[in-house]
C-alpha cells in the first residue's frame, strides 16, 4: 500500500473498470463469443475427458498436461497453462514425494517457470535430477532459469551436464550463450557460427533458436548487418516467435529503422510487447497524419490499461516492458526507473540490465549506474550498445535510435 506504484495501478484499473458500462443488448442474435472448434481444441477436449474419466491414470494426466502446455506455447495463451496447473495441482505433491513420474514433475516445473516461481521450478527440477538423469531437458530448463537470474556459473554447469546427452548444436548453443555473457563473446560467436553451419539440417525451430542467439551476439559485437541477417532468417524459420520478433524490433529501433520496425510488426500486434515497439516506431516516425497520431494515442492508452491490469493481476511480469513504456512513451523517468529497478531485482538478463542502465543514466542515479558497472565488470559482460550508454555516447546516438 505504501508504494506509489500501487496507487497508480489501482487508479487506472479503477478508472478502466469503473468506466465500463454493463448493458442489455437489444439484439438477441448479437454474437458474443465464437466457440473454438479446431483440431487442437477438439484434441484437448478429448484428452480432458480421458483424464477426468481415469483420474488415477497418470499417463492420461500427463497427456492432457503436456498437450495443454504445448497449446499455451503455440497460441501464446497463458490460460492453457492454467488448465495444466489445475489438472496437476491435486496430485503433484504425491508425485514429488514418491518420485514415480518425473514427466509430470518436469511439466510442473515448466508451469512454475512460466509463472516465474523460479524457486519452486528449481526445487522440482533438482528433484527430477536426483531421481533420474535421463532427461536432458531438465538441465536445459535449469540453465535457462539460472541464466535469467544472472547465475551464470550454475547455468554453465547445467549446460556442461548435457555433454553426450544432446546434439552438438544444442550443447554448443547452451554453452556459448552463457560464455558470451561472461567475457567470451567473440570466441562464443565464432564457435556457434561454425556449429550452426555444420548442423544446418537441424530441426527448424531449434535452428531458429540458435540463429536468434547468434543475432543477439552479433548485435553486442556491433556486427549489425550480420545481426539483421540472423534475425531475418530466424523469423523465416519460426515466424510465430514473439521473442525473436521483439528482439529484432529492439535492434531496428536502435538503428533508427522505424519503417522496418513497423513492417515486421504490423501483422503481429496482438501482444503488448510488440504493440509497444510498434508504437515507439510510430512515435519516432514523426508522422503528421491525423490518423497516425490518433492511432498512437489509442495504442498508448491501450498499453497503459493493459500494463496496469497486468501489474495488479500478474505481479512482477512484464516489468521490463513497462519500464520501456513509461520511459519512452509516457516520458515519466522516475516511474520508469522504479519499474526497471523492481525488474532488476528478479531478472538479470542483458535486456533487463540495459533498460535499467538507460533509466539510471537519464535520472543521474549514480548508485545504480555503479552497481551495474560492477555487475558488468564482475561478469566481464561485453556489449557495444551498453558501452555507448556508459560512455554517454548514447547522447549522440539517441537521436538516431530509440532504445539505447
Amino acid at each position, binding site marked *: 500500500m505504501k508504494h506509489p506504484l500501487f496507487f497508480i495501478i489501482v487508479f487506472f484499473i479503477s478508472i478502466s473498470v469503473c468506466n465500463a458500462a454493463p448493458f442489455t443488448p437489444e439484439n438477441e442474435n448479437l*454474437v458474443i463469443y465464437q466457440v473454438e472448434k479446431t483440431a487442437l481444441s477438439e484434441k484437448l477436449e478429448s484428452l480432458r475427458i480421458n483424464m477426468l474419466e481415469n483420474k488415477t491414470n497418470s499417463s492420461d494426466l500427463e497427456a492432457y498436461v503436456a498437450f495443454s502446455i504445448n497449446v499455451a506455447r503455440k497460441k501464446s495463451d497463458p490460460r492453457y497453462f492454467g488448465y495444466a496447473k489445475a489438472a496437476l495441482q491435486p496430485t503433484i505433491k504425491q508425485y514429488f514425494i514418491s518420485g514415480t513420474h518425473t514427466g509430470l514433475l518436469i511439466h510442473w516445473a515448466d508451469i512454475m517457470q512460466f509463472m516465474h516461481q523460479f524457486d519452486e521450478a528449481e526445487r522440482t527440477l533438482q528433484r527430477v535430477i536426483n531421481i533420474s538423469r535421463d532427461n536432458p531437458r531438465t538441465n536445459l530448463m535449469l540453465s535457462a532459469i539460472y541464466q535469467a537470474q544472472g547465475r551464470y556459473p550454475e547455468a554453465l554447469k547445467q549446460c556442461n551436464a548435457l555433454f553426450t546427452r544432446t546434439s552438438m548444436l544444442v550443447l554448443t548453443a547452451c554453452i556459448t550463450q552463457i560464455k558470451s555473457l561472461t567475457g567470451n563473446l567473440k570466441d562464443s560467436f565464432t564457435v556457434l557460427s561454425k556449429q550452426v553451419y555444420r548442423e544446418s539440417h537441424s530441426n527448424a525451430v531449434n535452428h531458429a533458436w540458435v540463429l536468434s542467439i547468434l543475432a543477439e551476439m552479433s548485435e553486442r559485437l556491433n556486427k549489425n548487418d550480420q545481426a539483421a541477417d540472423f534475425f531475418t532468417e530466424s523469423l523465416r524459420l519460426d515466424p510465430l516467435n514473439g521473442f525473436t520478433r521483439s528482439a529484432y524490433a529492439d535492434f531496428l529501433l536502435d538503428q533508427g529503422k522505424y519503417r522496418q520496425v513497423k513492417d515486421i510488426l504490423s501483422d503481429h500486434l496482438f501482444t503488448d510487447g510488440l504493440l509497444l515497439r510498434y508504437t515507439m516506431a510510430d512515435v519516432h516516425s514523426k508522422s503528421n497524419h491525423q490518423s497516425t497520431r490518433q492511432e498512437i494515442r489509442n495504442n498508448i492508452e491501450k498499453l497503459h490499461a493493459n500494463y496496469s*491490469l497486468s501489474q495488479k493481476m500478474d505481479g512482477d511480469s512484464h516489468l521490463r516492458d513497462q519500464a520501456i513504456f513509461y520511459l519512452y512513451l509516457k*516520458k515519466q523517468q522516475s516511474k520508469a526507473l522504479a519499474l526497471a529497478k523492481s525488474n532488476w531485482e528478479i531478472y538479470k538478463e542483458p535486456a533487463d540490465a540495459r533498460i535499467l542502465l538507460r533509466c539510471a543514466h537519464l535520472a543521474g542515479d549514480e548508485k545504480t549506474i555503479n552497481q551495474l558497472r560492477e555487475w558488468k565488470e564482475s561478469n566481464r559482460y561485453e556489449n557495444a550498445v551498453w558501452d555507448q550508454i556508459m560512455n554517454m555516447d548514447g547522447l549522440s546516438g539517441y537521436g538516431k535510435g530509440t532504445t539505447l
Partner: protein
Amino acid sequence: MKIFFMSIFWVMTISLAQAHQTSDSFLHINMRDDVSEHPIEIQWEVAIRDLQLTQNFDTNFDGAISWGELKRKQQSIINVFSENITISSVEGACSLQDNTLLLEKHSDGYYAVIKSNANCTGNISEFDINYNFLFDIDALHKSLVIFSAEGTQMETRVISSSERTLSFSNTPLSVIGQFSQFVKEGVWHIGIGYDHILFLICLLLPVVWIRKNRKLDPVTRFKPVLIDVVKLVTAFTLAHSITLALASLNIVTIPAYIIESLIAFSIIVAATNNLYPFIKKRLWWMAFAFGLIHGFGFANVLSDLGLNNEMFVINLIGFNVGVELGQLVIVAVVLPIIYWARNFKLYKGIVYPASSTAMVFIGGFWLIERVA
C-alpha cells in the same frame, strides 16, 4: 527425442510472449450509505470464454454464442455465481438477491455481468468474500475485487487459487489517516522527482551571491539569504499549489508530455540564468512562473494516486504539505552547504559555474528525451 527438440526454444525461454491475458474476472463490491436495506451491491464480470468452460451455451451448435443463447441460460449462470461467490458477515453468509444478467464489452471480448444485492444480517462493518469460480479448471484464474464505500479509499485486491478468501472492513479512514497518507506521498514524490529537485537547487545556488556589475560577491549576513530563500520557496509553492489544484479539479488539463518537457526546459532556463543572468532581481518571479508548470507535474502524480471525492480537499492539502516538507528538506541540506562554501574561490570559480553548466546539459538532455 523429437518432442525434446521441438521444445528447446520454449524450454530456454523464460516467459511467454502473451497474446492473451490470463483468465480474469472483476468483482465490484459497493457499500451504500443511502439505502437501509441491502446496502451491499455486487457486480461480477466474467469472460464468456471462461464461463463457457463450466457449461455449453452454444445450444444450436453453430459455433457462435449469441446474447439470446446466453440469456436463456440466465438461471444457471446465476447459480454459478451464487455457488462460487459467498459474502459473509460475522453472523453468517449473506443471501444474494435481485440477480440480473447483463453484458459488457472488455478489451478482450464480451463479459457476462451479474448484478446482485447481498442481504446480510447483523453488523456488516466487517465481512469476508469467498470465491471459488473456475479454479478446478484453470488454476491461474484470478478475480480483481474492487471495494468502494462512502468515506473510504477505493480498495482493490486480487483473489487467486491460493488466496480464495478476502476480508474487508467498512470502517472509513479517519481524516488524519487520509491526510498523513497523502503527506507521505507528497514527500515521496519530491524524493524521487529528480527534475523538481534540480530546479529547486538551480534556484537556490545564486542566493549566496550579490551581483555587482559582472562580479559575484558573497553575502556577508545570513538573514538576507534566508529572506531570499523564503521568497523563492513561497513563490514556487504558491504557484505549484495553484496549478496543482486547478489540474486536480480538472479545470485545466495539459498533456503530461508537454508538462514534462516544460519542466526540463525550466531547469535549462534557471541554470542558464545562473551563468548568464537575464533575471537579476526578483528571481522569485521565475520561481513563480515555472512553479505553475511544476504544479501540473505534481497533479499528474496526484491523479495517479486516486483521489477520494469525499476527502478531495484533505488529500490535496496533504499532498501539497508533503511536497513542501520535501522541499524544505532539500533547502535545509543545500542552503548551509552553499552558504558555507560561498567564500571559497574553488566554489565560486569552478563548482558554481560547472554545476550550473551541468544542469543546463541535464535539462537539455531531458528536454530532448521528452520532446523526442
